[in-house]
């Protein structure tokens, strides 16, 4: 019964993921697009839980859905009518090329996956209860991946400084209070 339940949840989450992903790309209003991405993130969080990545699921919801996307909605609301841009357009050649490229990528990935399917994608490893816990991930970050951790922190710092500078325009100084959330 548990097996069926997992499959059911997987199908629901996968369906949500695909549908919301399609919505992100296709709707014309950025506000809806952002909402769709939030739904997408929620579906992803469910999938992460199925993959025993509890901490990542929570972090995803907290950081991504909770803060980043709130900021996104904030900006969309702030821009109001100016946020609307033409859906697509440009030369039809460009559109065709884009479609061809995307489909080519997709087909290739599926083909590559199909080639590898039988060999080593079938049986997942045994894992302990601590798999995906904050403690285990934190320890990895401070030992094996310390450099990556430090570089990430520098990237964040640079982004924070960049955000402040972008928000501080000489023309209207008073408005940059909101931008600091970056």
């Amino acid at each position, binding site marked *: 019964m548990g097996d069926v339940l997992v499959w059911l949840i997987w199908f629901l989450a996968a369906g949500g993921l695909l549908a919301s992903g399609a919505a992100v790309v296709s709707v014309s209003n950025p506000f809806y697009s952002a909402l769709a991405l939030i739904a997408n993130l929620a579906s992803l969080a469910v999938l992460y839980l199925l993959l025993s990545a509890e901490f990542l699921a929570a972090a995803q919801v907290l950081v991504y859905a909770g803060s980043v996307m709130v900021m996104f909605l904030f900006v969309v609301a702030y821009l109001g009518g100016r946020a609307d841009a033409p859906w697509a357009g440009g030369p039809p050649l460009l559109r065709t090329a*884009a479609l061809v*490229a*995307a489909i080519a*990528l997709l087909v*290739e990935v599926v083909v590559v996956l199909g*080639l590898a399917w039988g060999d080593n994608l079938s049986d997942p490893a045994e894992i302990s209860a601590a798999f995906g816990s904050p403690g285990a991930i934190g320890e990895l970050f401070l030992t094996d991946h310390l450099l990556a951790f430090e570089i990430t922190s520098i990237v964040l710092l640079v982004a924070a400084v960049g955000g402040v500078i972008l928000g501080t325009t000489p023309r209207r100084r008073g408005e940059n209070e909101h931008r600091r959330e970056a």
Partner: protein
Amino acid sequence: MNAAVTGAWVCLLAPLAGALAITLAGERISRRTAGWISTLTTFVAFAGALDAFIRLWARNHGDREVLSTAYTWLAAGDFEVGFQILVDPLSTVMMLVVSGVGGLIVWYSMGYMAGDDEERRYFAYMSLFVFSMLLLVEAGNFLLLLVGWGLVGLASYLLIGFWHERAEAVAAAKKAFVVNAFGDATFALALVLLVWETGTLEYPSVFERVDGLSSTIVTLVALGLLGGAVAKSAQIPLHTWLPDAMEGPTPVSALIHAATMVTAGVYLLVRTSPVFEAAVEIQHLAAILGAVTLVAAGLIALVQWDIKRVIAYSTMSQIGYMFLAAGIGAYGYAIFHLMTHAFFKALLFMSAGVVIHHLHGEQDIRRMGGLRAVLPRTHVAFGVGTLALVGIPPLAGFWSKDGIIASALATGGVLGWSLYLAALVGALLTGMYALRLYFAVWQGPPRETEDEAHTHASGQSEGPLSMLVPVGVLTCLSTIGGLLVVPGLWKPFEHWVEESAEALVHPTVAQDYATSVVAVALGLVGVWLARRAFEHGRQLVTDPTAWRILERKLYVDELYDAVFYRPAAALAVTLRQDVEGPVVERSLDEIGAGTLHAGGELSRAQSGLLRTYAITVAFAVSVLVVVFVAVR
């Protein structure tokens, strides 16, 4: 840990603290405060040195060697170097000399430098120098010794070029630095060889293993060390920087270029004597270089006109004696002469400083004369210094210099006799140039500049108290400082130093006194010659060719110019014209033009549109995936 080491650490760190305090305080303290900080920290260092000395004295004979490690400074595999100091009889003597004489000179500087625009910088440099010199003499291993060695070079460079708006001072500082860097390089190479061959830089283990090395290696190591010593101590052939270094302030000349730094070479020879004893040829080479230097410098000193340059050549000459002593293994006398020389040479420089101060910067002895009436106390001090230099008993120079000459006699053989003769010639020359200087400055009728100065500064005394007291102290020391070694009577100093480095020769009492008679007689002959020349109003060197050769300092500078500088400059010009221009620059131009052209063509692909980029990337990736899959 025992207290002897505490004093030594205090001695080492007090001047550093002073230098840091002055530097960090900047303009928040007055110039005078800066001077006091520097002076007092140096005297604190002296107190520490005294403490260390007394406590070491109290220990048993043969147990007077304490190594104190603060922490492991460098470690690479088995190789370890600690930040450590060595307190033994030799280093305590050096500590006392450096901090004691140093303290007096820094104190003197407060009067001499008063009113200079950058006194704070000056005192910070002085403290830095004292720290570096103490680090050099207290260093507990070769690497730390090299650190101190380099730092004194730096401090010397900074202080020679202290008046950096004067082109000559800057040039002299550069010259000193370059020549010293040459010595530092050979020194460092010697250390590299040592690490390579013995795997350690600790004194005891190096000295222990040095006998096991091949003679080539030992010779090379000794040669490298000697190179460092020769450059630092301004011995021929690396002596050219010292006379030029007189561009610095006079207290600097007294401290660095007479009393302490230039004698570091002698200290090195004595400290590392086991290495030199394992490479006898090189040790003898040191003695020979010393002998050559002491004669050549004495000769050049006969014809110089600049008061400070005369004293500078005299310094070279006296250090030649010390090298001679260290080279034949008379370590006790080498260090003894180092100490007495520090007293009377610092005294000479400081008295000369009073004269220069009085004459508002005039240094040419042709424009001096008859100052005895104006500066009576300085005259006495200068006179004592001169007689001590010449080696008239019972002044300090007599005891130490004659000990060296007697040791040369005791060595015997062709080498010993040649050195003996050279040293005696040196004694004669010393009498001549020292008295020539003395008469030119103090006796005779006053010259015109002096008149001007007199009218300008009517009522001016011989300088502030801070200048006179150190001069007085040094006068006393120059008078009685030599009594620490009286042949046949007692030799506490020699025994003390020789606990660190056992001497190879011990002159008999008879040799000692016989030498003294000859040497003093020769000195007096020199004095008599100078007196006669002065009375007849002519120079000591009358032959114009000889005069010219000596005035051009034996053409060493010209030789270096011709051998090293000109070929290098010519090569550089050739390379610039024939390689840099046509080959390198032209090719760069071509590459640049080609890149520019290619860039111009390629830039047409840069549409600036996000979507075209994204599509291009996507296509590229899909192609790459196909390639990778196909290749696998």
